[in-house]
């Protein structure tokens, strides 16, 4: 039994299908299911929702050092429930795991952690806010003012973040539809963090600063059976506008897409399936497979027709379940930086 | 030397012998009568498979007749146990075969003395003399495998005579030897037997050898002629 793979299967059914566990995680099995018109309750909703199967606190940051070298940073805490609800001690059905990564133009560092719920190894509290696993933590007096730490055998970081804008809600007020069959999640973001701190890299510490984007999402049935993977973009344009767009690729061609246009003041416009499009332009050989690392991204409504390219095409998360995640640069109709996550490339 | 009044050393009366063949018993000897006294020499001739060797084996207490009487040196062989017959073999009879006469693990000297020692009256002087006369003095410490065929037969003869047998049987003793050697070995045999006063029975198919004996008998269809 590879427990870690099992956990991933629960959270990313795409991979599960590929490995012959069709259907696992795509039905609700007694878990609560996201419904339209969510009435979020903060700060409580910054905390875990154990009745839902999966949940994450997903932070990415585009950074640069004083000499202008660009970096990318990722810190993600996942919660995956084997059964709905919470229980004491080892009986807790909640399983936590986390990923941390730092991407430089020519290197990529990634590491992961696993922890059982119930015994204090990992969890999230809201007042004060604290999301932690082992010694990794994202914590602060509230959701707007946070510090962030993580480390692996060969790298680590210690960052401070301050929100510069409001929370942003995707889809219909945070109800984000993920397929034409109606699978959905609750999804909101804080894309306005200013972030600075120290990266511990093999060559020594590097002081960096930039912007960070935190996604909060939870659901119980995130994908439908015929979806094979996703390409997810979070783009920050030099204009101050931001764009979150994803497409869920369908088996046998076609895709389901959604996007949120975020104005500098935090006001949002949601775009339904088909408005946002991302087309691969070039692939890179990464970890023995071809992964698109240069994309044509279009959102005609907003005049977006830009090329999104990986800062480091080798930003491969070679963890228990591997995927690609790394910083990107944007050129074309708009310029800027962002993050790209791609799953389901075999 | 001949004593016609003495009881025969070898006395066969009405000896029958059959071998089991594929289609029932095959008679080989069908009532053979034969007497041989001390000092007498006898050649036994016959076709191949006529039963010469069988007759010799019976005469040497090596095999048993199916019926009839066999007496060697006055002992009724037929009535004897295996052990008693073995005693007759080592005390009264000596046999020289065509081949494989010698005990491979013993030296020539031990081979020559073996039967004499078995019968309990080894005569070292006789052994030496025999070896000398048979031209074996140089070979005494050798093992049989180191000797030529003629030498091996000479050793067999020496061994036979060293035991001072009263009856000496020879089965084609020179059959494996070339003509010259055969003649030489036979000369020595005849001369030595003559000296010892024993009775000699030679099975042969060679008229030349037969001619050297006092008597000649021919075995045909199980009968002596």
């Amino acid at each position, binding site marked *: 039994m590879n427990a870690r793979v099992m956990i991933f299967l629960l959270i990313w059914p795409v991979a599960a299908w590929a490995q012959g566990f069709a259907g696992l995680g795509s039905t609700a099995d007694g878990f609560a299911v996201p419904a339209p018109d969510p009435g979020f309750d903060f700060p409580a909703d910054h905390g875990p929702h154990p009745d839902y199967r999966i949940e994450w606190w997903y932070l990415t940051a585009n950074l640069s050092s004083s000499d202008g070298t660009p970096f990318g940073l990722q810190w993600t805490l996942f919660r995956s429930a084997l059964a709905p609800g919470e229980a004491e001690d080892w009986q807790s059905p909640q399983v936590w795991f986390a990923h941390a990564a730092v991407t430089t133009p020519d290197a990529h560092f990634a590491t992961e952690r696993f922890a059982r719920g119930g015994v204090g190894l990992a969890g999230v509290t809201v007042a004060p806010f604290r999301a932690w696993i082992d010694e990794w933590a994202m914590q602060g007096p509230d959701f707007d003012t946070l510090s962030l730490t993580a480390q692996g055998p060969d790298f680590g970081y210690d960052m401070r973040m301050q929100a510069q804008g409001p929370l942003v809600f995707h889809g219909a007020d945070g109800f984000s539809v993920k397929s034409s069959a109606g699978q959905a999640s609750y999804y909101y973001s804080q894309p306005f963090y200013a972030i600075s701190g120290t990266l511990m890299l093999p060559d020594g510490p590097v002081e960096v600063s930039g912007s960070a984007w935190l996604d909060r999402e939870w659901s119980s049935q995130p994908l439908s059976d015929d979806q094979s993977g996703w390409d997810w973009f979070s783009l920050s344009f030099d204009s101050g506008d931001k764009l979150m767009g994803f497409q869920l690729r369908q088996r046998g061609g076609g895709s389901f897409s959604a996007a949120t246009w975020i104005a500098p003041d935090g006001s949002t416009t949601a775009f339904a399936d088909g408005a946002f499009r991302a087309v691969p332009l070039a692939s890179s050989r990464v970890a023995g497979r071809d992964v698109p690392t240069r994309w044509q991204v279009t959102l005609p409504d907003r005049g977006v027709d830009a090329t999104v390219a990986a800062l480091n095409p080798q930003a491969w998360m070679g963890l228990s379940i591997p995927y690609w995640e790394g910083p990107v640069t944007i050129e074309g109709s708009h310029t800027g930086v962002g993050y790209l996550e791609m799953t389901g490339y075999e | 030397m001949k004593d016609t009044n003495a009881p025969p050393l070898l006395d066969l009366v009405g000896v029958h012998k059959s071998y089991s063949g594929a289609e029932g018993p095959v008679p080989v000897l069908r009532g053979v009568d034969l007497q041989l006294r001390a000092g007498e020499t006898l050649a036994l001739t016959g076709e191949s498979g006529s039963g010469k060797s069988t007759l010799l084996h019976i005469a040497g207490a090596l095999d048993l007749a199916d019926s009839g009487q066999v007496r060697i040196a006055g002992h009724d062989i037929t009535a004897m146990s*295996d052990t008693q017959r073995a005693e007759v073999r080592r005390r009264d009879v000596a046999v020289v075969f065509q081949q494989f006469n010698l005990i491979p693990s013993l030296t020539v000297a031990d081979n020559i003395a073996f039967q004499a020692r078995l019968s309990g009256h080894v005569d070292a002087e006789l052994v030496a003399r025999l070896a000398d006369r048979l031209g074996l003095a140089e070979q005494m410490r050798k093992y049989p495998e180191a000797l030529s065929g003629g030498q091996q037969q000479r050793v067999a003869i020496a061994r036979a005579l060293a035991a001072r047998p009263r009856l000496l049987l020879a089965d084609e003793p020179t059959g494996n030897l070339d003509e010259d050697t055969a003649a030489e070995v036979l000369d020595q045999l005849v001369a030595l037997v003559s000296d010892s006063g024993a009775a000699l029975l030679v099975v042969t198919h060679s008229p030349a050898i037969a001619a050297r004996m006092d008597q000649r008998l021919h075995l045909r269809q199980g009968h002596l002629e």
Partner: protein
Amino acid sequence: MKRACLAALMSHWRRNPLQLFAFLAGLALATGLWSGVQAINAEARASYDAAAQTLGEGQFDQIVPRSGDRIAQADYVALRRAGWMVSPVIEGRVDGVRVLGFDPLSSPAGFGVNNAADDIDLGAFLGPDQLFAAPETLPRLSLDIALTEAPGVAPGIAAGDVGVVQRVLDRRDLSRLLVLADQPLTRPPLDRIAPHLRLLPASQSADLGELTDSFHLNLTAFGLLSFAVGLFIVYSTIGLAFEQRRGVVRTLRALGVPLPRLIGIMVAEVLLLALVGAVLGVFLGYVLAALLLPDVAITLRGLYGAEVSGTLRFRPEWWGSGMAIAVLGAVSAAGARLWQIARMPLLASARPRAWAMTTGQAQRIQAAVAAMLLLAAGLFALLGSGLAAGFALLGCFLIGAALALPVLVRPVLTLAEGASRTPVSTWFWADTRQQLPGLSLALMALLLAISANVGVATMVSSFRLTFVAFLDQRLAPELYVQTADAAEAQGLETTMQAQGIPVLPLLRADARIADLPARLLGVRVGPTYRDNWVFLDASAGAWDRVADGAGAILNEQLARRAGLWVDDAIDVAPGVTLPVVAVVGDYGNPLGQVFVSEPLFRDLHPDASPRQFGLRTDDPAALRAVLETELGLAPSAITNQTALKAFSLQVFERTFTVTAALNVLTLAVAGFAMLMSLLTLADLRVPQLAPVWALGLTRRDIGQLELMRAGVFAALVCIVALPVGLALAWVLLAIINVEAFGWRLPMFLFPADYARLGLYAVLAALLAAAWPAWRLMRTPPSALLKVFANER
């Protein structure tokens, strides 16, 4: 043409079914013993591996308490939250089964249960309470919990989620933490987070493998020995068969069959026969292993606490090695003969040479090889170190001795021949000497078998004597009591003291001493110790000095491993250095032990409280009643020392049942080798014996002499085998045992046993010779006369 050639060659086997039988049976027996032993080894090893992995022992650094055997769960969480990548393990015993809890999420790859439980669904594992165990372990558990069959879990172990096992054991704590290989950049030192815990580096954890390996090496050595014996049979059979077929080979070549094709056909033939023999042998080995395995399992469980699964699996490593070694053996045996045939001139004599008569040169070469091997053995003994060198020494010595056998026996036979007075005895000795080359392979096999018997008998009996004495010394108290907790222990001490019954607490703590894992024991110095303990070496007033806290006693294992002896100094704890006042023999225990006085022990380990006590009494039954009624101790908590002693002895008796069974088999195989050699030689014997018969020996005489010859050979082999066997025992006790176990066993001699073994060996030889002799006695005179007959 190929088929015709094959038919011509194969007709040899049809006409000589006995040779075919010898070939196949020899190979099958050899392979059978080898693969049987391999099967047992492979099975046992697999079980250990599973056990070692399941327990996480030896593979990973571990964090363990400085005293006691519990770790608070809070410590675990604190360590994790400080950046220590550790995985929890909780362990306890239920119904005699080791119950092991772990966390599948954090346990390191390679942690056995993780691998073993491949087929267990994570949801099921973390889900409702259940434990997983091998099918044979399940019936031993009487828990009110779901039990699921998981064949991959090591026998004697039930595994489950750490939380489930905590509830099964009614505990909220952990036993130890596995330290993962990958640790983050920075983490505070262990002392700062949990000063009461300590890091136990991987290699220094208790190592089950080292101990059990010795047993397996022992078995393997005997397996190899048996195979060598079998190979001797195959070698001689092939030799004879090929010699006898020179005529056929010559005829076929004269008829125009090319030599390479002929050789090719014969190679194919040998391979085919070897494969058949090997398959038979592997099957035989499987049966053998199946018969012996329960014994092995019991033996190992008893001796080392290691569980061996009682079921046999058809593992490629043992049947493969059995097949390979059989085919290689047969081919190498045939190779020399084929080489001769390849070089044989077309018109060479078709008559079989007296193949048994080896040339003087061959004998000299054999003597030289024997001398070289014996020299190598001597060099290994003088210069080598380690288990491998010990076994190399053993191998060189045994094979050298076997090869030297004919060289040693020949002069004896010559001497006897010279000394004999009667013609029959002269002939007997001369003929015996002549038979020596033909029988030498069988005799060498017999030598190896007898030597092994002598060696193992010596080792087992020496071990037993030493161990009985050791038990009398160590298990002096009449009753042993296990208390459940400190309160019960205190109650016991108080009650017993009130009744004037001497109480001997067994205080123990795991420690690192002299950089080795060891156990520190606190003893209440008193008459029991002073009167019963026999030291290997001691300084004057050893017990007084221990009582004063001014001396420590080491067991032999620790003394030898640490290179310490009496009067050396040893650190029994950080900053506490004591002189070694005595070294005591300690058998059947893998750990190093240091004995200090009770007060000193309590100073060093204030937290440790004794749970086990020895009680001295003249009336164990009455005291037992008092303990049960007044103190409310469970009957199962009280052990009678005689029972304990008997059990311990039983364990050691069992240890060697397997070895003994293999010994008997080796002897049987050696007897078989002799029988086969005699039977194949029988045809060659007739021309050798016929003249003797013609000259006045009865067939009965000759048959009896043949029997006597076998007896003489066996007796001579025994005489050579005795020193060889004793040397073997010495190597086992003084070299291999020290390397594998860490203690040296005193060697005792057991002349009566050797005499009995010699008798068995002679009996085996007589049995082997009986049938050929009987056949000889029954040979009709006509068959003997044919040797001489003109009409051959």
